[in-house]
């Protein structure tokens, strides 16, 4: 477990292989919600929280439940059940603790269950940090850190996008490109600029 690995994970998860701009996970919510900054920020923080927690839980489930009993092929089902349950739990807790926060999140919270990013990162962690059915040294910390960085990358892309789209609201965009098409073009250019970090080596 060395610091270089952490730095590499950070740069690749946030910039080079940005979860939205490069891996396309969470694209649906990205295009739909990045129109304004407030909802974008709310969604990003919720997603980041769920990703980090589910990275932890799914790691444990895989390591101590699926692997020992040779049930690796049940990965998909168990992970999505874990995520769905967890999101449901979070929803119930937030509703009890802070009805105002619950109202702010509105529909975004249940939508996180089907956010490709959450399940995607869980599966990615397994693919990257388990080799031949055995956990790599420090695998748990790498997985959780990767979850955190993916959340940060998601937030970064969302914030940049919402700032840009809010500004474009005041402009005279050609009718055929209004909303979705232009959003994709902007994402494309942002992705191109993030590519500047490729080949990163510490």
């Amino acid at each position: 477990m060395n610091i270089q690995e952490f730095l590499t994970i950070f740069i690749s998860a946030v910039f080079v292989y940005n979860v939205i701009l490069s891996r396309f996970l969470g694209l649906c919510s990205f295009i739909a919600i990045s129109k304004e900054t407030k909802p974008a920020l709310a969604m990003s923080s919720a997603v980041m929280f769920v990703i980090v927690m589910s990275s932890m839980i799914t790691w444990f489930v895989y390591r101590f439940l699926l692997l020992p009993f040779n049930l690796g092929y049940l990965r998909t089902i168990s992970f999505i059940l874990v995520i769905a349950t967890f999101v449901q739990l979070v929803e119930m807790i937030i509703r009890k603790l802070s009805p105002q926060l619950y109202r702010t999140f509105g529909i975004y919270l249940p939508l996180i269950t089907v956010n490709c990013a959450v399940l995607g990162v869980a599966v990615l962690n397994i693919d990257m940090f388990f080799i031949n059915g055995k956990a790599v040294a420090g695998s748990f910390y790498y997985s959780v850190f990767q979850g955190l960085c993916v959340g940060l990358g998601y937030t970064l892309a969302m914030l940049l996008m919402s700032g840009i789209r809010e500004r474009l609201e005041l402009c005279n965009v050609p009718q055929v490109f209004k909303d979705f098409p232009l959003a994709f073009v902007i994402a494309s250019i942002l992705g191109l600029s993030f590519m500047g970090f490729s080949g990163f080596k510490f």
Partner: protein
Amino acid sequence: MKDLIKEFAKGIIKENPTFVLALGLCPTLAVSVSVANAMGMGIAATFVLLGSSLIISLIRDFIPDKIRIPCYIVIIATFVTITELCMKAYSPALDRSLGIYVPLIVVNCIVLGRAEAFACKNNLARSFFDGLGMGLGFTLALILISAIREFLGSGQILGHTLVKGFEPVFVFGMPSGALLVIGLLLGLFNLLKDKRV
């Protein structure tokens, strides 16, 4: 019968899941690097869509409303696992190139969306044709995007060089190129829609 044909046809153009409903974009952009991948993903997704639509439509009266989403997810996940295992067994090369996007069919908005919007409210026959139409529409959209990307990005389609001396435009094989292609295609479809009106 005409009714059923209508359900089937709407998934291809009028309510095309990719270009009109803007669903399931995550895997669309990711696997559209080559036409071979696109067809593989399209078939896999259609199988899951068909299977889950059928089962959900069959047991729609027995699922309690409060837990319907988790139930749908379990059903869909089962079909995805079947697909995953079959793919790993019969075409490991395809499984490797599609990577994490195969298990991600579980959260593909198209599958869950059709379950929630259609299969739980309609009978077996209509759900079957709806699933078939949507799956086909998705596959066709995938093939269109990947044909453009594969041709521009590597000068080939399905591994065959079409134009000699063509300098491939590498960016189209990259994620940014995918976003660009879909942005421009959506703009183009908007233009065609406006012209028709």
